[in-house]
């Protein structure tokens, strides 16, 4: 008994000596939460998010902190992994809001995580900006949730109109993943927009597959036989190369058009030559970029060795938006609940924000009004600006 008591006393004393070294008042630090899929199905997306966030922090630190109401504050990033699972994203958001006292959250990227995580952020009255989520439900009826990209109901018609104007085609085919909400939603919007222009039945083949399928030959054969002139496939970087290559092998000669999910750097790397000359709609084009966009791309490329994809660029913009909102919030009271609401109000008022993915103004719902870019994959495999389409 005595020995135990003695040991306990020694342990307490030992720990105290070290612990008090970190003692001090609690100072106000601006914390920005990042909710990203660092592990799981799409780690590349998480990586881009993380790198962009770290670059942003570097800038802030160089400036000696964020200036709000005439006072400089230290900024900290809280980066949480959501494992690209919805329950994990909810846990990460709850932790950042209740434990880390973050002022703003940037992320999650995919809609499957952004929709439930947005609910948490809105309940706790914390501003959340999802840079990449295109599902309308993410921001719907949630005053505290914003997004950094355009929505599918805008993107679908943009692609359809582009094909009609550019090639004058009247018969199109669609190939999409029925088990993933983004491709499915976009395929539906595209179909509606196309049929509005060319009449019912002008989508001659509307084929689907399931996530993780790798053989598309039966769908592609059907598409080829249907007499379609163009193939629209709103898929991710892991499927696009397979689809394009298999289509070429089956003798498909028409153009294949995609959506912003093609924008990852991996698409061309995995696909190679068959993808050259294809078009997709996106948030920004890396090749031939000018001004701030080029500066961002060069810096990112220098630090990490590859051209940033649209997720990184959108995350960058989301963080800059958050920064501007914090700066416009007037004064930080140190009471986190009040400050969060002040930031939210400031963000809703942002007008004509000059981001690297285009100018943004928020609607009532927290969705930005911004232009889409049609990108052409050129002969060197770079994403080249082709055309800009504004609402």
């Amino acid at each position, binding site marked *: 008994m005595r020995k135990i008591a003695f040991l306990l006393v020694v*342990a307490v004393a030992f720990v105290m000596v070290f612990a008090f070294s970190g003692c001090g008042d*609690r100072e106000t630090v601006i914390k920005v939460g990042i909710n990203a899929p660092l592990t799981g199905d799409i780690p590349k997306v998480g990586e881009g998010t993380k790198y962009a966030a770290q670059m942003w922090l570097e800038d802030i630190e160089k400036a000696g902190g964020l200036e709000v109401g005439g006072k400089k504050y230290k900024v900290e990033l809280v980066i949480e992994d959501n494992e690209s699972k919805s329950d994990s994203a909810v846990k990460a958001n709850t932790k950042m809001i209740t*434990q880390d006292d973050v002022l703003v959250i940037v992320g999650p990227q995919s*809609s499957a995580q952004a*929709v439930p995580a947005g*609910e948490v952020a809105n309940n706790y009255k914390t501003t959340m900006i999802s840079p990449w989520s295109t599902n309308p439900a993410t921001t719907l009826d949630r005053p505290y949730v914003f997004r950094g990209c355009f929505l599918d109901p805008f993107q679908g018609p943009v692609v359809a109109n582009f094909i009609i104007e550019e090639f004058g085609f009247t018969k199109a085919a669609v190939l999409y993943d*029925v*088990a993933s909400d983004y491709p499915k939603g976009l395929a539906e919007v595209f179909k509606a927009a196309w049929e509005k222009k060319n009449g019912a039945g002008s989508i001659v083949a509307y084929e689907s597959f399931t996530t993780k399928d790798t053989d598309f030959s039966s769908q592609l054969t059907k598409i080829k036989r249907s007499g379609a002139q163009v193939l629209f496939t709103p898929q991710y970087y892991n499927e696009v190369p397979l689809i394009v290559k298999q289509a070429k092998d089956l003798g498909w000669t028409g153009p294949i058009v995609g959506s912003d999910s093609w924008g990852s750097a991996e698409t061309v790397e995995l696909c190679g030559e068959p993808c050259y000359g294809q078009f997709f709609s996106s948030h920004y084009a890396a090749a031939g970029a000018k001004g701030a966009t080029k500066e961002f791309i060069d810096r990112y490329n220098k630090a990490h060795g590859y051209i940033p994809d649209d997720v990184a660029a959108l995350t960058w913009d989301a963080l800059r938006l958050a920064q501007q909102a914090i700066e416009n919030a007037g004064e930080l009271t140190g009471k986190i609940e009040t400050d969060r609401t002040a930031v939210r109000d400031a963000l809703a008022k942002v007008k004509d924000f000059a981001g690297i993915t285009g100018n943004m103004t928020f609607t009532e719902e927290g969705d930005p009004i911004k232009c889409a870019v049609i990108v052409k994959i050129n002969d060197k495999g770079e994403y080249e600006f082709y055309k800009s389409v504004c609402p």
Partner: protein
Amino acid sequence: MEIARKFKNTFSMVPMFGWLSGALAAVLVEYFLGYNYISLVLGLPKIPVLFGTLIMLKTPIMIPSVLAYDLIVYIIPVLTVAKLTAPATNKIAGSLEKIPIWLSTIIHLVLFYGIMHLWAGINDYRLLVLKLTMVSIILTISINVINGYQGEFSCSHPGFMAVGAYVASILTLVLFVNDKMFGQALLPAELGPWLFPFILIAGGAVAALSSLIVAIPSFRTRGDYLAIISLAFMFIVKSAIENMNFIGGARGMSSQPDYASLPVIFCWTILTIWIVHNFVTSIMGKALNAVRDDEAASESMTVKTKKTKIIAFMFGAFWAGVAGGLFAHILRFINPGTFSIQRLAEILAMVYFGGLNSIIGSIVGAVSISLLGEALRPLELFKWIIIPLILIFVMIYRPYGLISFKEINVKKLFRSKNK
């Protein structure tokens, strides 16, 4: 070794009631002094959640402060209060032995719930982790009925969970919520929390019925074949929901009402433990074990093997459905992707880690895997190396899991240690 023995000797006479009082003292200390005094003095930014593991891994410089916090807030109060009150709590435990066992159990549970409520009340993140951990406990116990007591290898649990989650969500959305998917609510929203148990039971019942789809064709086979068929069932459920647009398809369903509060989930967890315990110790449970050990022999000993197997399978599926319903109302969003192979891996890890044929084992497995998953969160990718490694070691040194083939004995657990 000497110290461990002495430690054991010193504290062996503390009854369960004494430990609970110690824990209550600890959470009270945290509740009243944690933020304004202890963590401030130690230089911590806030009360560390989950015993400070998150802070320790993120900023190692904080390790001494966190250890000091754990020592002051948890270890010292629990040990001293448990030790000092041992004479008194032994007397209480002695008098609790005289009243009916159910009453004594309820007293202990109320005390335990009080501790959890205070602990979780400090931070909503703790609350969420606690809720999801309890759902994991229900899931693990329910799969233990099939994979442990019945000795099969079933992979369809996420499927049953999905069925329960979707049925419960559809019912609450149709009945109590004005939403875009199903339109006006049919019943007043005040009734919701009261009818929620029936909704969960309905979800469980539909899951149990759907388990017949696996059970009837596949119970002619055993082992690997059942595993394959049940795995197929899981994928069928997922694809079916993905293609049903009226319940959201791949986009999922959201805005379920917030009915799954901590007391509700706690009651359901206790209910699960109690009912499953009674089930596996009943004649049916004994028959189930006989079927597991030797089907032909038990058939010849008048056990109705087919009926036993199907009932146990449906029973397991029922609780998985209930857990799914609770899960949907905690997250308030479900999509078919949530109930996929990753969830299956989690559930299987919990049950095999904790121990087969044992409810305590299931609880230990569910709690430790869930808490490990949260505590190691800052390690990102390395988390997925460490947890599987631990599992591998458990499988090598304890092939049936940490605590296997052991039943709860409530009487023994709560008895006075005064000798």
